[in-house]
């Protein structure tokens, strides 16, 4: 592995200072929180910012608060490890705790942050390689070229989004706050993802993600995230499914908005299965109802040969994991 490229280092003490550094340096700057994703791409020369703005000294950006009325608020720089140890999360959002535990290794979770995991860059076999390895082929779309090594002749990039905390947070209806010198804006977590492999999130160069909020868990609801990977630690997902269901008297609740199924690592953004609520609402939580959603989910994704696991295998596993996630979420709702 090559050494790190050089850059100017800034460690602002407040969100305000961070915003003004971002507007000063714009595209020439990158934010660094934990760095477990960014530093590797810098070693591989996928990213060579002139300025790194570290969030390590910004106070209050790692706070976790819970209020019964307003729900959970997490600072973007909270580490995944502290998230898994936070009493309100363990108590009220156990599925979020479990999803955070599925990221990387113990060592990575102790540095990596929630904001960083949400803003994880998209990945591809032909992209996440050293600059030396990449020299053997013409540059792809994501490295500034005009070809795609995954889908021949493609005008677009198919790099895959692999963050494990996004799908479960989307299923729970999370929102994110983006701060800048000009103020702040709050968008739903789903809107954070552009679906563009080249530029996977909607954070503008002068903005930074400062806070993630989740509504209080609704009565009778349960969520789960199932992650498929080659090894049970360290690996990125080769596919994942998050599900939220609402139960009422042993059956699925009657309101379609009580349901959400989000597929992960099969495209450039986590993708919600359309109509899942209508297919499940009011039904008995049995195989037939789950099967319908599972098949719609399978038909909605087109994984490519750019991560571990063949596209055929990943596509075949979509319905399996959807049913698995729905069953787990139903069990969580009933307990």
């Amino acid at each position, binding site marked *: 592995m090559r050494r790190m490229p050089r*850059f100017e280092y800034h*460690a602002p003490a407040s969100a305000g200072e961070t915003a003004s550094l971002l507007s000063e340096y714009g595209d020439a700057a990158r934010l660094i929180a934990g*760095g477990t994703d960014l*530093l590797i791409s810098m070693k591989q020369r996928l990213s060579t910012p002139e300025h790194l703005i570290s969030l*390590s000294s910004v106070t209050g950006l790692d706070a976790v608060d819970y209020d019964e009325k307003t729900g959970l608020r997490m600072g973007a720089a909270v580490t995944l490890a502290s998230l898994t140890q936070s009493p309100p999360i363990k108590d009220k959002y156990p599925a979020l705790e479990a999803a955070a535990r599925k990221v990387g*290794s*113990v060592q990575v979770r*102790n540095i990596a942050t929630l904001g960083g995991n949400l803003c994880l860059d998209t990945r591809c076999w032909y992209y996440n390689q050293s600059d030396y390895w990449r020299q053997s082929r013409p540059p792809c779309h994501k490295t500034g070229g005009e070809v795609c090594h995954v889908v021949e002749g493609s005008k677009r990039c198919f790099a895959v989004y692999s963050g494990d905390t996004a799908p479960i947070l989307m299923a729970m209806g999370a929102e994110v706050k983006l701060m800048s010198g000009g103020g702040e804006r709050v968008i739903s977590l789903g809107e954070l993802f552009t679906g563009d492999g080249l530029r996977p999130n909607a954070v503008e160069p002068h903005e930074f993600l400062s806070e993630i909020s989740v509504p209080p868990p609704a009565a009778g609801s349960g969520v789960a995230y199932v992650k498929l990977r080659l090894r049970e630690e*360290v690996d990125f997902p080769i596919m994942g499914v998050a599900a939220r269901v609402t139960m009422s008297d042993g059956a699925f609740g009657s309101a379609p908005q009580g349901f959400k199924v989000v597929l992960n690592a099969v495209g450039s953004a986590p993708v919600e299965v359309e109509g899942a609520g209508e297919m499940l609402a009011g039904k008995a939580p049995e195989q037939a109802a789950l099967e319908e959603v599972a098949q719609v989910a399978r038909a909605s994704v087109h994984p490519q040969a750019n991560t571990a696991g063949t596209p055929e295998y990943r596509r075949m596993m979509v319905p399996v994991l959807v049913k698995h996630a729905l069953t787990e979420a139903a069990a969580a709702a009933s307990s």
Partner: protein
Amino acid sequence: MKRKMKLTVNGEEHSLEIEPHRTLLSVLREELELKGAKEGCGQGYCGACTVLLEGQPICSCCLLAMDARGREIVTVEGLSVNGELHPLQQSFIEQGAIQCGYCTPGMLLSAKALLDENPSPSEEDIRSAISGNLCRCTGYVKIVKAIRAAAEI
């Protein structure tokens, strides 16, 4: 441009002047001559560079030294006290839990973090605690045994 920073390593405070692009691993190895932590993959997959930051295992290859400033680091060199090996180190030797030795410093530190929090771990706890450390000699059985034996001391 070099930056001044302080780093507490194995209980000793160091004042350093370093370029900000240096990782914690490169500062430990090249500035402080602490060669225990190793660079394996350089990407946070193998755990050979594991050190303790405020008592918790981290990959020192994926952390800027600047972002560790003012914080407490323990490397494998900090385990022994007055020349006496740490019970985990002694146990690794007695159980033959070392082959090429490249993963050993990281394994020891992940094990130390575990035992500090949970003095009597189950085999599953031990396996989970070292799941971010690869041993390419595949000597996991003896490593798990050595950690269990050290816990019993």
